[in-house]
């Protein structure tokens, strides 16, 4: 703890020296946090690795993940064991599992990041507005949050996708509809205490507009909370997408880890013991979700020491 306090003292000093590009201190701390918490650091490294895989997917796996491969004899290269040519073997229909795994990273990150962004945005705005304005606006927003929280998670996602059609954006929509209340509630209660602080009072006295107080004076202080919930939402969205695909409601045109698992399950890869088919996608999901846990944990430890023990 002592070294942490020291670091906090060092950073503003460095900032003062480089005034020209000075970021708001809270943003600065948000960006440097991972360096201070080993768990969060590991989380960030995992994210970066997957991001690299997603960006360079076409180079890492040159085979088309949906292409049916043939042997030189003209037969379908079905259920090939892992080897030099196919690092993880092939599916029962002769598709390259390694290529699917690599390309699955893209859709996992797309689902996770877009859901996280929207959840954090909606949760933050609702929490800010409800906490700051109070009264009937607050009551209304919080009742809507209660309602969303009393929906059973996965059943709701399935029913919604059953209606709206098997599209990845519908998975994101369903996740957002169910996850925003958690962040909105916590942010709201934080805003309730922040709006009574003296610096907010001072801003009010000097004639700052409501919007300015809300977005310039209060919002930056709850930004770490938004990050915490965004990091959690990434994992939830990816698990939800995988579950939905596994249950057969996934986007048929999309190569995802969930689709791979569903494919393996439906084509008896379990009884054949094709571990190379169904173990790697699960491990990838665990890594991404755990990375989210670690990062949110880091933000909490650094920014909300009251929660730490």
């Amino acid at each position, binding site marked *: 703890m002592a070294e942490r306090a020291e670091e906090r003292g060092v950073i503003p000093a460095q900032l003062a020296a480089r005034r020209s590009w000075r970021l708001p201190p809270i943003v600065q701390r948000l960006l440097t946090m991972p360096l201070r918490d080993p768990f969060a650091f590991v989380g960030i490294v995992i994210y970066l690795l997957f991001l690299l895989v997603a960006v360079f997917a076409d180079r890492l796996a040159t085979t088309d993940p949906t292409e049916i491969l043939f042997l030189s004899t003209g037969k379908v290269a079905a259920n090939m064991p892992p080897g030099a040519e196919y690092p993880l073997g092939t599916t029962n229909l002769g598709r390259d599992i390694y290529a699917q795994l690599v390309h699955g990273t893209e859709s996992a990150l797309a689902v996770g990041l877009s859901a996280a962004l929207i959840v954090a945005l909606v949760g933050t705005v609702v929490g800010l507005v409800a906490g700051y304005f109070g009264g009937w606006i607050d009551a209304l927003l919080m009742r809507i949050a209660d309602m969303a*929280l009393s929906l*059973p998670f996965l059943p709701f996602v399935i*029913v919604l996708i059953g209606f709206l059609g098997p599209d990845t954006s519908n998975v994101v929509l369903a996740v957002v509809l169910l996850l925003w209340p958690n962040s909105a509630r916590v942010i709201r209660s934080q805003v309730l205490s922040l709006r009574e602080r003296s610096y907010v009072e001072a801003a009010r006295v000097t004639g700052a507009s409501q919007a300015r107080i809300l977005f310039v004076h209060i919002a930056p202080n709850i930004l770490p909370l938004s990050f915490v919930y965004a990091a959690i939402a990434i994992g939830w969205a990816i698990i939800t997408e995988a579950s939905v695909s596994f*249950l*057969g409601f996934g986007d048929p045109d999309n190569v995802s880890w969930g689709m791979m698992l569903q494919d393996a399950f439906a084509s008896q890869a*379990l009884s054949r013991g094709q571990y190379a088919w169904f173990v790697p996608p*699960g491990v990838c999901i665990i890594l991404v979700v755990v990375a989210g846990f670690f990062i949110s944990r880091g933000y909490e430890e650094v920014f909300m020491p009251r929660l730490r023990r």
Partner: protein
Amino acid sequence: MAEAHDPSVADYRATSPEDGGGRAPMKLVLERFLHNTLALLAVITILFFMFRLMPGSPLAAFINDNLNEDQQKAMLQQFGLDRPMWQQYLIYLANLARGEMGLSFFQRRPVTGILLEVLPNSLILTLSSLIVAYVFGVLAGAWLAWKRGSWIERAAVPVVLATRAAPEFWIGMVLLALLSFKLGWFPSGGASSPGEAYTSNWQRIFSLDYLQHLALPVITLALYLQGLPLLLMRSNMLEVMHEEFVTMARMKGLSEWRIVIGHAARNALLPVVTAFALGVGLSMGGNVVIETVFSWPGIGRMLVQAVSVHDYPLAQGAFLMIAAVLAVMNFVADLLYMTLDPRVSHGRAG
């Protein structure tokens, strides 16, 4: 420490009664009851309009092109679908109150009957997994808190987090491949072996065959569920160990073991008990995937099948039943929280 960013613990926190202190207990109970009832009513309403707004007539499975226009109209009238939406909604509510959820499109039987047949399977699966998970989680959590700072504690927390990060169905798949297909210890799915006949449902449930089928789904679900009680118990223990009454017990010269079991653990258990009640409701929803992996004839698998064949009345009924269990268990959790926490039950500000 680890629990605060954990999604399920976040849920648990979000649904626990917030400002309980300072009000009369009876009034609080009524308030929570009203709150949960209204939430369920809201869910019912959302569901009604969702099913009405979706493409296609709700009678799609009954009306076909062989019927002429007059016959189709007569049928719509028979089902009350020619009336205004709000009247349909009231009829729907009145029917629900009588336990009437319509006919399944495909099975051509009342939905309520179908659901009541599979509900026991889901409840048995959920409760046995939760009991296994919570007994293990509480003991392991308390033990880890006691081992605070050791290498085993440092290694255990990320491992537990990883079990919570794994998709439930994937844990199920790996266990199936290893324990069922490879080693042949457990049957690979279903709730009873083909050819078995029982005179009553109870006889079936208490048969050895049923328990053999139940074992692997329970292990899978328990493995997924144990993380929450474990992390909760661990952090509660750490918190409680610093409270005054523990210091007091120490000053009285009680042994470390008695302090841990008799004083600290009792108090640390409180939120875990509430989490258990909530867990029943929450994992009923999550069972959707576990039941599918193990072809377990429960309500979650019923929902998945109904949605995929567009059997709307059955899907609606299954969803409502899961939502109802969730609402009831939320209320039970509220009650437990109020009874167990002296700060709330004695009306002092908490």
